[in-house]
């Protein structure tokens, strides 16, 4: 029995074919993973299912019945729920208010709060969702906000749940927790469509896997026959570039090693906001040609460190020394902090660059072309606003923009969040390139593998202070004794357990 069947779905945007005659069947009561690069057509297909877009041709069947949605409301009514990558929550409302928006249980004209609360508490208990109903959304961490979104979907009792890259914003511990929730969905007879970039997750949870490439369904396999190597080949279509970088990295490590000079120095930095201590005696040195990895669960002071280093926060206590005026920063949230989505790639580069006082279309296009070639960025048409680029390409454009500044100090905050393998390895390459130029780099991430791969030193941040520091040698040694054991150790420090 299939929950959802796509039959010959085709969707075009201008002369770009996002979905090219895709046929796909989703088994009931299972997790079906959809893999593919940024721009492979995964999100488009899901948005068609959810009624955001309408397909140009083809049909969709739900539980054997042909359907045609005109808006997400129709889809919700048919029992489909979607967890977007970017949450649709109202910051000033409480969790409960957010959840009941659009589906209010009323007693006459009055909202029947006791009844709603009871229903919600029941859902929270059953799925271990762990959110307080009366807290304001603006006070919640990203993973808690994600749970609110899930609560919304469950409150509407959706039987088919679309998860669009749900773990991109989670730390390893949270991912573990999240998958337990997803397993409970299956136990309860729901069907899950999971879009992801991370192959490890596919291995962990998928029942069936489909790979989309350039809008086409190119590969499908079952859990029993799952082969990660084959999957990655199918996703990219040619070689697996991550391996290539590793060689270069090893070359660098075994190569020249000179005495580096300190570029950025933070001493006894403390910072509090609204009476809450965020940073406590935080200390950090970054030398030239060095990548310092900051590891931690989100909300332990990472953003505040970035803001102090870039000068956005000024009222901190402690000493901050820096031997360079220019700082480049790739912020953690590309939509909110990373770019002005209305401007084109070229325009944002000119806007960011010092001494560029005239910004004409011609100059912007020239810059755009330059960057497009160097960074292999897909831009739908020359001078198009950044909003129209896919997530991975937006991120590449931001990285390109910041590297173009030729700063001696660069902050990368979650540089590959929500970015596919190909673009990630491209960005890793660029980060290593900047390090080899002798620039000081701060890498903030919750992806431990990424940190191990890139960093010369890793510090673990917990509640605004450094709980543990690893040098490259220590990391190397630990890895020899077993990767899983090391990850477990790091994971413990991340949630504040010091033994």
């Amino acid at each position, binding site marked *: 029995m299939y929950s959802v069947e796509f039959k010959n779905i085709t969707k075009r945007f201008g002369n770009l074919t996002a979905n090219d005659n895709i046929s796909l069947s989703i088994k009931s009561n299972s997790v079906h993973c959809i893999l593919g690069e940024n721009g492979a057509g995964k999100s488009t297909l899901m948005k068609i299912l959810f009624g955001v877009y309408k397909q140009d041709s083809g049909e969709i069947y739900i539980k054997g019945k042909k359907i045609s949605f005109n808006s997400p409301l129709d889809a919700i009514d048919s029992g489909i729920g979607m967890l977007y990558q970017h949450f649709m929550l109202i910051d000033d409302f409480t969790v409960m208010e957010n959840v009941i928006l659009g589906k209010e249980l009323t007693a006459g004209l009055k909202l029947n709060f006791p009844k709603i609360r009871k229903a919600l508490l029941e859902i929270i208990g059953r799925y271990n969702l762990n959110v307080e109903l009366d807290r304001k959304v603006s006070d919640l961490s990203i993973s808690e906000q994600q749970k609110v979104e899930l609560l919304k979907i469950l409150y509407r009792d959706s039987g088919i749940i679309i998860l669009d890259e749900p773990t991109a914003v989670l730390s390893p511990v949270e991912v573990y927790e999240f998958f337990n929730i997803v397993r409970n969905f299956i136990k309860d007879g729901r069907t899950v469509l999971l879009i992801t970039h991370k192959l490890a997750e596919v291995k962990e949870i998928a029942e069936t896997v489909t790979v989309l490439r350039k809008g086409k369904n190119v590969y499908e396999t079952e859990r029993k026959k799952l082969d990660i190597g084959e999957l990655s080949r199918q996703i990219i279509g040619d070689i697996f570039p991550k391996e290539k970088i590793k060689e270069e990295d090893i070359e660098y490590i075994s190569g020249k090693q000179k005495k580096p000079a300190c570029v950025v120095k933070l001493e006894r930095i403390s910072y509090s906001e609204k009476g809450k201590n965020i940073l406590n005696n935080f200390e950090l040195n970054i030398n030239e040609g060095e990548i310092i990895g900051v590891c931690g669960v989100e909300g332990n002071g990472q953003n505040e460190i970035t803001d102090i280093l870039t000068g956005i926060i000024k009222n901190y206590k402690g000493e901050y020394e820096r031997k360079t005026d220019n700082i480049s920063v790739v*912020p953690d949230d590309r939509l909110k902090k990373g770019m002005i989505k209305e401007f084109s790639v070229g325009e944002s580069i000119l806007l960011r660059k010092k001494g560029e006082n*005239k*910004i004409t279309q011609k100059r912007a296009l020239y810059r755009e072309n330059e960057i497009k070639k160097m960074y292999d960025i897909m831009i739908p048409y020359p001078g198009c606003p950044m909003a129209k680029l896919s997530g991975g390409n937006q991120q590449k454009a931001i990285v390109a923009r910041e590297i173009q500044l030729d700063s001696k100090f660069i902050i990368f905050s979650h540089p590959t969040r929500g970015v596919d393998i190909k673009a990630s390895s491209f960005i890793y390459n660029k980060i290593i390139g900047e390090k080899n130029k002798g620039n000081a780099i701060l890498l903030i991430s919750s992806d431990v593998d990424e940190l191990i791969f890139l960093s010369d030193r890793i510090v673990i941040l917990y509640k605004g202070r450094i709980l543990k520091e690893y040098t490259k040698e220590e990391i190397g040694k630990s890895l020899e004794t077993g990767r899983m054991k090391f990850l477990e150790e790091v994971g413990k420090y991340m949630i504040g357990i010091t033994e």
Partner: protein
Amino acid sequence: MKRKLIKNITSVFLSVLVTLFITALLLIIVGRNPVEVFSMMFYDVFASGYGLGQAFFKATPLIFCSTGLAICFHASLFNIGAEGQLNAGAFAIAVSSVVFSFLPVWLLLPVSLLAGFFVSGIFGLIPAYIKIKKGVSEVITTIMLNFIVMAVINYLLINFFAVKATFRTEKISDSLMLPKFSDYTDYFQGSSLNLSFIVSILFAIIVFYVIYKTKFGYQIRSVGFNPVASKYLGINVNKTTILAFVIGAGITSLVGLNYIMGYKGYYEYGFSSNVGFTAIAVALLAKNNPVGIIFSALLFGVLDYGGLAVNTIVPKEIMFVVQAIVILSIISTDKIVESFFENKILKIGNNLGNT
């Protein structure tokens, strides 16, 4: 850019058509013949130099004021206080022209215009400062400041600057008066159209250039689009907010240039007859594009004078209704044209873009 232009022109054109249609219906309902009313209106405006001149004359203050407002709007500052700001500035222009009348004209002109810019600018600085320091919405502060400004001017006028038994200042020196079009050509005979019309167009073009082609303009728009990201792009958001508000408010003072130096020669209480509010609609219609503002102000000028022209057969208030319908229809046709372009024209646009 090209695609956007075609899109905007289409939607404006459509909305004007829709407006004419709805207005015609309204006229039929009140028992008038729309053909008669429209032809009378357009005849009066376009058949004589006087009509055309008056329409342009009415458009001039709108161009100045909307251009100033556009700067604020691009920074996402919803300045509702233009009425107060322009009155303060115009009053300052009139008073300083009289007080410093001992100065030679080449010095007096810039001094009094700067005084106007400065005083209007202060009433942009106050809401900007309160917004930055205390987070109070500029919508509230600027509305309130309108009342305060008018009360202060009233007080100053009555107690210090007014000519006895009137609500106006003394007349400025004739040498400060701007040349009128009718001084040079008989075509505009009798119309008050003056040099400030040309100044206003030049001004709009300059502001267009600043907003769309300079880094400062990009910074203003960047702050308007996304203040958080602007910080990470290294833009001083507070400074940009203040500058946009002060410059935008300052420019509204030039409404006084048209009225005082181009027309009456003095400041009169209530002279602006809500230009500061109409200008919001004009800027909205032009999507805050200063060059577009020139055209939307001209449209409003035509409607404004056209309303006077048909006053004999329908109340001139009908033109306020028309202005309102224009705004409503542009907002709705915008969406329709948008989706049409996304679906049908995108392909052509892409091909154009690729060549």
